[in-house]
């Protein structure tokens, strides 16, 4: 499946990502989906959120409605639980298709949950999602790692190198 976008996205980068994904996670052959719905019945999000449905999502991919999907916030609602992939009798993985769509939406400069940037920046700065916190104790007051006798968390020393690498792709995405 080659994904084409109508916006002025770097098509080469997009093809690379789709190819990489196809190679690494096995075929995403939306055309063989027989719409049995096993993925949707396994999906925890479908149970609770109307309008989110991996079976339908695959149908939309098969119909080539990629542009429309990229702008749909549904692709960011999947919890990445992988149950759809586990259940699909045709070895289609709605989960992996969603990951590709997210990668593409990002490159197309479309909206994505802003919290992503905070988390990613946190990880690149400290190696973890945040600084170690002081946690409220049931008995009153706040407890730190040290107060519990746990060793400090200093984080990895080489994250700066990765900051360079990841920032480049963030810029590449935003430029489009």
């Amino acid at each position, binding site marked *: 499946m080659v994904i084409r976008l109508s916006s002025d996205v770097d098509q080469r980068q997009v093809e690379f990502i789709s190819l990489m994904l196809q190679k690494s996670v096995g075929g995403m052959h939306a055309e063989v989906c027989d719409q049995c719905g096993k993925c949707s019945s396994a999906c925890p*999000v479908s*149970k609770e959120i109307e309008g989110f449905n991996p079976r339908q999502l695959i149908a939309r991919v098969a119909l080539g409605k990629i542009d429309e999907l990229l702008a749909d*916030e549904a692709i960011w609602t999947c*919890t990445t639980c992988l149950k759809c992939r586990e259940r699909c009798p045709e070895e289609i993985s709605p989960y992996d298709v969603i990951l590709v769509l997210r*990668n593409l939406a990002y490159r197309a400069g479309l909206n994505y949950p802003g919290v992503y940037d905070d988390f990613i920046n946190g*990880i690149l700065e400290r190696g973890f999602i945040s600084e170690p916190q002081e*946690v409220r104790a049931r008995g009153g007051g706040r407890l730190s790692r040290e107060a519990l006798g746990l060793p400090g968390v200093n984080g990895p020393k080489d994250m700066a190198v990765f900051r360079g690498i990841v920032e480049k792709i963030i810029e590449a995405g935003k430029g489009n």
Partner: protein
Amino acid sequence: MTSLEYALFPGCVASVREFGYELAIRNVFKALDIKLRKVEDFSCCQPACLVHSIDYVKGLALTSRNLAVAEETGLPMLTLCSSCYGNLSRAKHLLDHNSDLKDEVNDLLAKAGRTYRGDVKIEHVVTVLHDESMLPILEKKISNPLSKLKAAPFYGCHIFMPAKYSKFDDPEFPHKLDDLIEITGAESLDYNEKTSCCIGCGSFFGEVSEEASVLLSEMIIGSAKEKGADCIVTTCPFCIMQLEIGQIKLREQGKDFGVPVIHYVDLLGLSMGFKPDELGFDLRRINMEPVVSRL
């Protein structure tokens, strides 16, 4: 065969916020004579919801960086978080089966002077404790059987999905956590949502997912409580956080479940005679009385 020493990979949730579990695992493993080495260079495991969603290959490189660090220690990795276990196993599987991808990732790792070779072993508390060689040891160490306690196992999702990456257990009918619960003397309950998903590590962004996560908490906790559960036992600090916060939100809506959610190391610790505060119970968001009163 269980190793005598592991490189502890606590993951970010247990490192920066939910460190009661790090306390519990350290105390319990020490009592089991298994050493845990602290490794400064580990970072967050980089779940699929973060960098992977935005740049697949670089996300994978950040995950695999941890695998490379573990290989440098020469020790198997031990995680107490389902998602860490799932993410690390998935990265390993992808790299070990795609030499192009492995090269691509190694090019990025080389910038930090690291290489992923592929010989690291990834374990989770449950896989280590469920090992044949460990089961008789556990039986001997249990000095305070929890025969009054009814526990609902909650496997969560990332720990075994998809089965071909992690080989943790049968994803539809898992039994390892159930077995381990029974060893402590507690009763392991069967209920509908055993292998459900808490929407913790995935899409906890935005109103829609928040709403869904509260609804799922209600389903999971409600179904466990209906079967008479005194507590829910998980394999993941992130699931605990979700199910605790979910209960707090449900309480605000007038639905008070009051079901403590604990990690398996907590349960084992209690059965080995550890005091609740040696297991970080003081940091829990839900009143632990239903568990503590049955010790």
